[in-house]
């Protein structure tokens, strides 16, 4: 693992993964969107509105997955002081914030016709909103310090403390009475989604996952190059 803490090694690895990730993303996005919007049946209760689920659910999964990537990177950064780990957290945060916003917006748009309201302060919705603010706070800390090292340390600590919110999001629908429905896929006793809807959902989730890999690697490369550039500039000034 230490080998990839070397930026040049990391860039080489990223360049090898990227074309494959882009291919997976393109294929699964086209197939997933076709199946989700055209190739899958309407729901027995929700009718055609169920199609929002194919965006909403993968976005919500990725919102939590990206947070775990960010928190994992922060943990490695604090314990082993890998410079790349810090950059990984910084690279992941805006992607996670976007997924979270997408989950909140699509959920809200689905909620109006189905529930009769855009928003209720129930356990699930509130904890996901907190997740969104954790991402924003993490990014704000990175921008708020002049000293990159201090910024990275402070942001990493926030990311780690915020991990508490992840089980709260997942189990909010079981621990408390919420308007949001309980889990349909990752639950005891197996999924409660018909197979003809479950497959399009998984394909869309694959597309979202591949999208994350692509944008994450691009942003990592960008961060590494920016670091290199600022080192070069300093070398010019002081050298």
């Amino acid at each position, binding site marked *: 693992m230490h080998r990839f803490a070397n930026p040049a090694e990391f860039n080489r690895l990223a360049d090898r993964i990227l074309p494959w990730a882009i291919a997976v993303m393109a294929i699964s996005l086209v197939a997933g969107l076709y199946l989700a919007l055209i190739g899958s049946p309407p729901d*027995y209760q929700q009718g055609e509105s169920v199609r929002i689920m194919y965006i909403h659910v993968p976005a919500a999964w990725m919102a939590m997955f990206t947070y775990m990537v960010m928190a994992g990177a922060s943990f490695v950064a604090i*314990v082993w002081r890998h410079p790349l780990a810090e950059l990984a957290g910084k690279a992941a945060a805006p992607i996670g914030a976007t997924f979270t916003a997408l989950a909140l917006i699509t959920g809200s748009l689905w909620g109006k016709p*189905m529930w*009769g309201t855009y928003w209720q302060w129930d356990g699930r919705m509130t904890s996901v909103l907190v997740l969104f603010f954790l991402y924003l706070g993490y990014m704000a800390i990175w921008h708020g310090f002049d000293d990159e090292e201090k910024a990275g340390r402070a942001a990493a600590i926030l990311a780690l403390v915020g*991990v508490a919110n992840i089980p709260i999001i997942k189990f909010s629908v079981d621990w408390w009475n919420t308007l949001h429905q309980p889990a349909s896929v990752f639950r005891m006793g197996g999924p409660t989604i018909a197979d003809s809807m479950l497959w399009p959902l998984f394909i869309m989730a694959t597309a979202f996952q591949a999208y994350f890999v692509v944008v994450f690697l691009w942003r990592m490369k960008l961060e590494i190059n920016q670091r290199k550039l600022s080192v070069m500039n300093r070398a010019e000034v002081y050298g």
Partner: protein
Amino acid sequence: MAAPKKSKGLKTRKRQRLVIVSAALIAIVGAIILITFALGGDSLNLYLQPSAVMEKQVPAGKRFRLGGLVATGSFHRDTDGLTYLFTVTDCAVDIPVKFKGLLPDLFREGQGVVTEGRLNKQGVFVAETVLAKHDENYTPPGTAPKNAEACSHPEALSALKKGGR
């Protein structure tokens, strides 16, 4: 690797950091979740189920949210044609609900609802808003959901009671 003495010291420090950060992380995450439960209490629940309303003896006139299933066969329209009457149940306790207004699309007997309003002196819950709750089932029309609600009312309720519950 080049300086084995130095790297040994570094290794110990890293191991120490690993233990300290892991312990702190577990403690903080545990503390946050416990504090959420301890301070949040009932306010973390969006609504009360009929059993909880009964248990807490919620007084008439106090505003709260009531949630549960719309009992099968309980829904009907009042003589004015604008007021709806139905029973909200959690399979143990029933509360009659009166609502004047627009019902959401998903409102159905046997499905969940969250309503906000007050109990009147007669024990009828006068709702100001009614929200439909969707369950965890997704299935094409005409097929049976995989996880159909165990309680459909009132036949199933009496069957449950006979079954010794």
